[in-house]
């Protein structure tokens, strides 16, 4: 299982939990499991979301591995100017 930190304004979708656990071994599985277990996150993930994995921000990197001891943080889809 991988612990995923959920940012504050999305916690209504996780019953207020700041951190949830999902069964996942890569970026894509984390996102899929979040959508499956917490349907309230589907709109945000569909609109765009990033994952910070051990301090690095990944935007659409499906096959980036995650491990049980990885720090995984759900983040908005990153853009810039």
């Amino acid at each position, binding site marked *: 299982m991988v612990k995923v930190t959920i940012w504050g304004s999305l916690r209504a979708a996780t019953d207020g939990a700041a951190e949830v656990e999902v069964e996942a071994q890569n970026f894509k599985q984390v996102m899929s499991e979040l959508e499956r277990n917490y349907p309230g996150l589907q709109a945000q993930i569909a609109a765009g979301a990033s994952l910070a994995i051990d301090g690095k921000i990944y935007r659409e990197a499906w096959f980036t591995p995650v491990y049980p001891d990885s720090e995984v943080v759900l983040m908005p889809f990153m853009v810039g*100017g």
Partner: protein
Amino acid sequence: MALDTEKREFKIIGTRPLRPDGIDKVTGRALYGADMVAPGMLEGKILRSPHAHARIVSIDASAALALQGVKAVVTASDFSEAKGELMQNILENCMAQDKALYHGHAVAAVAATSETIAKQALKLIKVDYEVLPHVTEIEDAVKPDAPVLRPDRRAKGAPEGTPANITNLSNFGHGDLEAGFAKADLIIERSFRTESTHQGYIEPHACLASMGPDGKADLWCCTQGHYAVRDMCASFLGMSLSQLRVTASEIGGGFGGKTVVFIEPVALALSRKAGKPVKMAMTREEVFKASGPTPSSLADIKIGMTKGGKITAAHAKLRFQGGAFPSGTIDLGAMCAFAAYDLEAVRAEGFNVMTNRPREAAYRAPGAPIGVYPVEALIDELCIELGLDPLDVRLLNAADKGTKSSYGPTFEAIGLKATLEAAKAHRHYNTPLGPNQGRGVSCGFWFNFGGSTSVSMSVNDDGTVAVTEGNPDIGGSRASVGMMAAEELGIPYENIRTIVADTNSIGFNDPTHGSRVTFSVGLATIEAARDAIKKMCTRVAKIWDIDPDAVMWEDGHARPAGENAGNYEPMSLAEIAAIASKTGGPIAGHYEVNADSAGVSFGVHLADIEVDPETGFSTVLRYTVFQDAGKAIHPAYVEGQMQGGAAQGIGWAMNEEYIYGKDGLLQNAGFLDYRIPVASDLPPIEAVILEIPNPGHPYGVRGVGETAIVPPLAAVSNAVSRAIGKRMRALPMSPPKILKVIKG
């Protein structure tokens, strides 16, 4: 890709060769968006709403179409239905649908044989408007009786009672705020305000569209991302991507404002309807009214600090307005607000609200300047109250490797402390000030990112190399990409020519934004060069009849990898290229990647300001930027980015603002009334580059383009406040506003 573990002595990286586009730009040979022409070309013009908010009851273009020389008129009905809310918003911003949502919103467009006729035709288009109540300010837009722009755009999942114009909710942070504030010796809570600013690029949006009767189209335009332009336009016109080729012109500034489309799909729709090429170019007035700008903001900040300067808790409530459509920039502002600090208890929350203003566009580190400004201003006030040095306090609280950031992830190696120490040791910080002068300090932060990137390079028969990439060069990337190719291949920089290809010539590239290009295109260039080197080594192995692994690349030559490989005369790149057709054919290298591992970036700015107490007129006496670049490929360009960001941030702090009347109309759509700093307004800006390598890039590169616009707002505000002995809490700080605070 990780940082190369083997320490290497660079030969080209870190030098300052002449820019490859320099002669073209100073002689007028460079082709910008408005320079494009085609036989039989028509001129396109847009009819814009004179109202801040109005229902479009009907549009009658019959009189316009009857005018001799008019070849086409388009309205919203000429576009396909966009997929997804974001694309629907972008399309609706390009052409109003059932409502005009702001003063200057496009409602129809015409193509004619001359600009004069096109302008005449606009006057003949009859639009029946039902004028609606409007709202342009944050405070008004959240009132229960506020006019609602788009009921279906209200924030999804928002708690009951959330005002209908609120589109995005944001909340980041960790720790126990109450316990943190209980530990503080001093708690200060203040409110701040900033106004909308424009990116202020010198080149207005311009394009030339040409669609044939077979549905194939070409589009030339000034943009930061021609692949994104292609994708948006193809969607809005119901085209497949392969049928629309987009070529980016030289670009006269973008700063984020050219990452989205405004006139490009309109020109294509007109060309499709008229059967001729259509050129469009915005006037400056149109640029102000209908492109850009940034959000304006309100902020309530509360920070607790010990007598020794340790921050015990920090809380921000941010409210952004991003114009007439939803905007996620509030998330970025909230994430950046406290990112420079290692805090046990921190929270940044806020919302975006719709108003009858143009749709917000990205501007250098979008959201960060207005998220960071109030925090850095309040820290300065705490430092004064507690009698502490502002750099010492920032050093005491600075984020470092291993810090859990205020937005969630734990930082890897970062350069903030080194940057603060460099500022503290610099002669600027230790120079005495005179009367009516103040010195301001501020930190700044930006994420940087990578994104999808494609690079190809061809080894020519004469030993020169053509590098093909797909990101418009807005900050010197052709030079830095060429330098990285030359460094890796071991050939002179002058033997490389880098071009920006059209959308059909190379794989997809995310736009030139997010401070991503030197990082990700550089990374792809290094890998493409290594791909070409591998192929050249394989060819040489065949010539020498040895194993490819027994051939190594060094200083632009293939050499035997060791004594056991045999005794062969090294072959240069040029020698290998000259016989390429005999050894297997042309030699090329390429690399395609969705690059991650862009390292975050921090900056620290020092500003010395003198204020005339009689007039409120302020003068920037001295300004120094300290920033971690990871590795500066071409230091002159890095310095240019740092100086340019500072200049734009100074303008944001001192003068720039969108001004709306009570009628909801924009009052200052021109550079005479919208004051940006010019060269004579500013002193030389000193740039101090620090190099703390990004562990995610072979040479250690971090993005540098955006961070520099983040600190100036607070650095200048803190300097002015210290100069006048009173606290400024609203931007811009134009002379009348400063005088008002002085007079009390």
